[in-house]
């Protein structure tokens, strides 16, 4: 009986990714967070190193690895920064997989291959100012005009939105039909260099400040015919497919982040002295951390089972919703207990714990809120 899902090749990959993370990302995180930005160069370097296409086939410009290789990337980045893990995951798990899955050979050449090389930055565009979880209510609209599409509307809370070269976007191309609540939605690859696209606002968030989150505006934007990704009118189904990979990705790096935060709290508890002993020697503190470690290992087990299904090509909506919900709960709980363990040191701006505590809160909202995951599960359980 083999215990670890990883092979020696994955271990070597982990070492390589880990070195990159420890030398080119971790030392700068505090500065980036303070500046509210990080260099685009990150994407280029990740592309050069072959880290953006780990689980993509070689024919599409990827490394041809399995999903566990992608897990290695997300875990290694997730252990130092949820924000950087998020922006990379937008590139590797959200904006690009639909191009491989639904795109034409020409779209793969034009958008996917450069994206996996880190030469183009992608974003995923679903949420709008008036509609988030309720995807069927989106109002951004593309209308066919001869051989072009005319795009009007706006998208909100778009990660990488202020720096993206393209946005994998769902928009309305037809009317809502009675009895078909998800009809009339299509997916597009929106080239942000085209006239009519603008960044209305770079949003200032409580956490993950280094990652740009934007409100975008599309005003009579003319898209070429081949901007349509996949089948017209099938966009809802396509974005639901995309969300599975997205939720897997955030689950993987969310657990890795929780584990790293817990390790920091344990390290602190073993060093910090109060009342003549280390605080970790107080039973109450030790039990709290034991509880958190148990939660981390439990949710890790669930997430690895999901990764295994995903790797085998199983479309496991139930397990993915469970993992997403469980990780959101876990990461917020662990981050908060860690903050409590560090006391005042946990509140200092620029510290690892304070930064990740703020960042973790997004995990329960983005990619489908806790409530949405529960509703999905209720539907699958047949109790909705």
């Amino acid at each position, binding site marked *: *009986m*083999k*215990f670890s*899902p*990883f*092979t020696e090749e*994955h271990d070597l990959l982990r070492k390589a990714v880990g070195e990159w993370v420890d030398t080119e990302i971790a030392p700068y995180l505090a500065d980036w967070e303070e500046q509210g930005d990080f260099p685009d160069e990150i994407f280029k370097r990740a592309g050069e190193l072959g880290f953006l296409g780990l689980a993509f086939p070689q024919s599409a410009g990827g490394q041809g690895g*399995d999903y*566990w290789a992608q897990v290695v990337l997300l875990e290694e980045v997730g252990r130092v920064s949820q924000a950087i893990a998020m922006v990379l995951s937008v590139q590797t798990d959200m904006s690009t997989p639909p191009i491989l899955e639904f795109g034409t050979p020409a779209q793969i050449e034009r958008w996917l291959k450069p994206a996996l090389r880190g030469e183009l930055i992608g974003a995923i565009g679903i949420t709008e100012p008036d509609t988030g979880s309720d995807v069927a209510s989106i109002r951004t609209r593309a209308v066919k005009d001869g051989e072009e599409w005319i795009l009007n509307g706006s998208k909100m809370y778009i990660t990488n939105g202020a720096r993206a070269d393209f946005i994998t976007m769902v928009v309305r191309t037809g009317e809502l039909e009675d009895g078909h609540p998800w009809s009339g939605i299509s997916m597009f690859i929106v080239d942000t260099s085209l006239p009519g696209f603008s960044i209305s606002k770079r949003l200032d968030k409580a956490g993950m400040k280094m990652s740009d989150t934007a409100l975008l505006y599309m005003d009579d934007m003319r898209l070429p015919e081949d901007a349509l990704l996949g089948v017209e009118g099938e966009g809802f189904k396509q974005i639901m497919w995309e969300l599975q990979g997205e939720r897997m990705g955030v689950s993987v790096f969310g657990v890795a982040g929780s584990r790293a935060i817990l390790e920091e709290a*344990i390290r602190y*508890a*073993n060093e910090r002295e109060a009342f003549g*002993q280390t605080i*970790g*020697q107080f*039973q109450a*503190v*030790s*039990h709290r*951390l*034991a*509880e958190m*470690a*148990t*939660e981390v*290992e*439990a*949710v890790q*087990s*669930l997430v*690895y*089972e999901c990764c*295994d299904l995903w*790797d*085998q090509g199983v479309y496991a909506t139930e*397990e993915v919703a*469970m993992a997403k*919900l*469980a990780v959101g709960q876990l990461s917020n709980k662990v981050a908060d207990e860690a903050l409590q363990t560090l006391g005042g040191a946990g509140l200092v701006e620029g510290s690892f714990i304070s930064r990740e505590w703020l960042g973790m809160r997004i995990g329960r909202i983005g990619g489908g809120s806790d*409530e949405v*995951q*529960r*509703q999905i*599960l*209720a539907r699958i*359980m047949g*109790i*909705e």
Partner: protein
Amino acid sequence: MSGLEPLFREEHEAYREAARRFVANEITPHSEAWEETRDYPRGLFTEVGSAGFFGAKFSERWGGTGPDYAAEAVWIEELSKGMTYGTASDLGAHSQLAALYLDRFGNDDLKERYLRPSIEGNLLGALAVTEPGAGSDVNSIRTRAVRDGEQWILNGSKVFITNGSWSDYLVVAARTSEDPGHENITLFVVEAASPGFERTRMKLIAWQTSHTGELFFDDVRVPDENRLGDVGSGFRNIMVNFQWERLMMSLAAVALAELSLETAIQYARDRSAFGRPIIKFQVWQHRFADLAVRIRTGKALTYRALRLHIAAENGSNVSREQLVRLTSMAKLFTQRLAWQVADECVQVHGGAGALMEYPAQRLWRDARVGPIGGGTDDIMRNVIAGTMGLGAS
């Protein structure tokens, strides 16, 4: 190969089907009556034995069909669905504790005399460690064994001994020296028919069909050939076996939690309030979804610990600390979970949750043993904290 190796193979699915059929035919139809009378026939052990369900983890040499720990896990899961947890606990104490101790630490003579008939289900065993003054703190036991030529003379008492009020033999932990210290605890196989041995059956609010005994040893003479393992090896052997016991408890707790959730959802579908079935209220939908996630999470953790256990049994290089850590985590996570799910099951039943005619209250009462038995939640936290260098030094 990357990825997770499947825990269960095709033959395990056949085994599961057989176990399911056995439980559905021989246990479930009687469970209500057994709970009502707080008893069940001793012959159940023979039925389980002759159907082969005591044999999965034992070698063919002693009448088993293994060792196959994944198959054993299947049996535990299915048995747990039989809705009579006191009965399952008796069967478990016999097979997961007494018989397993004999298999691991006994010589051929002891195995021939006690293990073989235990696997057949013709001889009932129990494990006696806990005392009125020593539960989780095993090293504080005071039952004394004094050597007298080729015999040992036992004096002392034991409590909460599952299956112990009617077993044919007991694996008893006793102190073989006046000195405190782990190295002075030794295990003995004591026949219940021995002169000087007395016992009573304890009345508990949970596991009501179980034959939980309070035991008294008054100059009970045990031949040295019934010593299980070397003198002084008892404490270490108890600690080793705790891991398997806790893993089995985790599997059973997950199964109980699954059953509680099914029971709760069924009631919520059937019962209406404010003009619609309770299940139509979103708060209950979301609560059930949360519980389903927790159950699946606990199951994933338990299966991960089981994988590690099987890897260790197969001779893979598994650190003992990792095994202890994951097993303790599985035990801590699942025992409270089972009780929480059962508690929500009572809650959704409203007033009916308190009625003895509904199974909800029984699931709830029985699940409450989990965070206490086999090492309490606090002991688990101590153990886990210890693996991280935390806790009292």
